[in-house]
């Protein structure tokens, strides 16, 4: 099982995620997505729904799956966040604020668009939904442009 300790190549992980979309549709007739889990959690906390939604349970599963992947790779909990730490400011507080702000943008944007990289980007596009194709092209283009812009503004080598 040495393959589980190293990074999965795209040609294994990609088709596996595709099969997972097929499996979920076959079992439940529902599309795969991540945003719904957060929306249902918010609705539950603010008493707009009476119980925990299945999409929130799905996201709890994603946390568990992440944990298992770290266990398989033998990686440990960390305060570091790769080159983000060097890119964005000296203090932990500044970095935390940027992440909260970035998360809020994804929350507003994903809610407005009705989906995220998983829901629109992977699932909706494979279903052939025109809105998903447009939305995916938009956030992909924006994210690429924004990342180049950040790198340029911060004066870092490309």
């Amino acid at each position, binding site marked *: 099982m040495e393959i589980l300790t190293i990074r*999965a190549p*795209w040609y294994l*992980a*990609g088709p596996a*995620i*595709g099969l*997972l979309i*097929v499996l979920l*549709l*076959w*079992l439940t*007739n529902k599309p*795969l997505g991540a945003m*719904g889990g*957060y*929306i249902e959690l918010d609705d539950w906390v603010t008493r707009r729904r009476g119980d925990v939604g*299945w999409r929130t349970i*799905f996201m709890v599963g994603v*946390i*568990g*799956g*992440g944990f298992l*992947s*770290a266990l398989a790779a033998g990686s440990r*909990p960390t305060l570091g966040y*790769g*080159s983000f730490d060097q890119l964005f400011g000296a203090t932990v507080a500044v970095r935390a604020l*940027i*992440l909260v702000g*970035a*998360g*809020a*943008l*994804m*929350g*507003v*944007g994903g*809610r407005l*668009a*009705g989906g995220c*990289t*998983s829901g629109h980007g*992977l699932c*909706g596009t*494979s*279903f*052939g939904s*025109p*809105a998903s*194709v*447009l*939305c*995916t*092209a938009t*956030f992909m283009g924006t994210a*690429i442009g*924004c990342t180049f812009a*950040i*790198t340029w503004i911060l004066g870092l080598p*490309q």
Partner: protein
Amino acid sequence: MTLKMIGLTCGIAFGFLLGWARLTDYDVIRDMLLLRHADVFLLMMSAMLTAAIGVRLLRALNVRSVLDHAPIAWTTQSPRRQHVIGGVVFGIGWSLAGTCPGPVAAQLGRGQIAAVFTIIGLLSGILIHDVLRSRGAITSRRAAGEPVAVAGL
């Protein structure tokens, strides 16, 4: 099997795959967005292609879903302005955080403390959207799953 049990199981599989492919690493996403490496694009495209073929096979074979015994079906949406505006706002957030709503949960499971802040932001952003909409500042349709058009390619 209940919907929640299936959700939990599929969630675990999804989280494991995201972590295993290291889509939880800031630099993997950054290198993708700087067009340095093609592997994440290839991963996404192969996932899309596999799912696109798989779900159409299910439908062509008249398979019924396990849970509700209904014929396999899905809805598609017509493009609207909110998909573009939402996509731009989402894209900026994705670029800054180097992660998105799926992988950030797997980050949390992997013990990456940074994920806590991104998730707090995500949950707040959804609430901000809902407050703005209830005050009439945003006039989008309510939720992801609500079909605008029912079709299917």
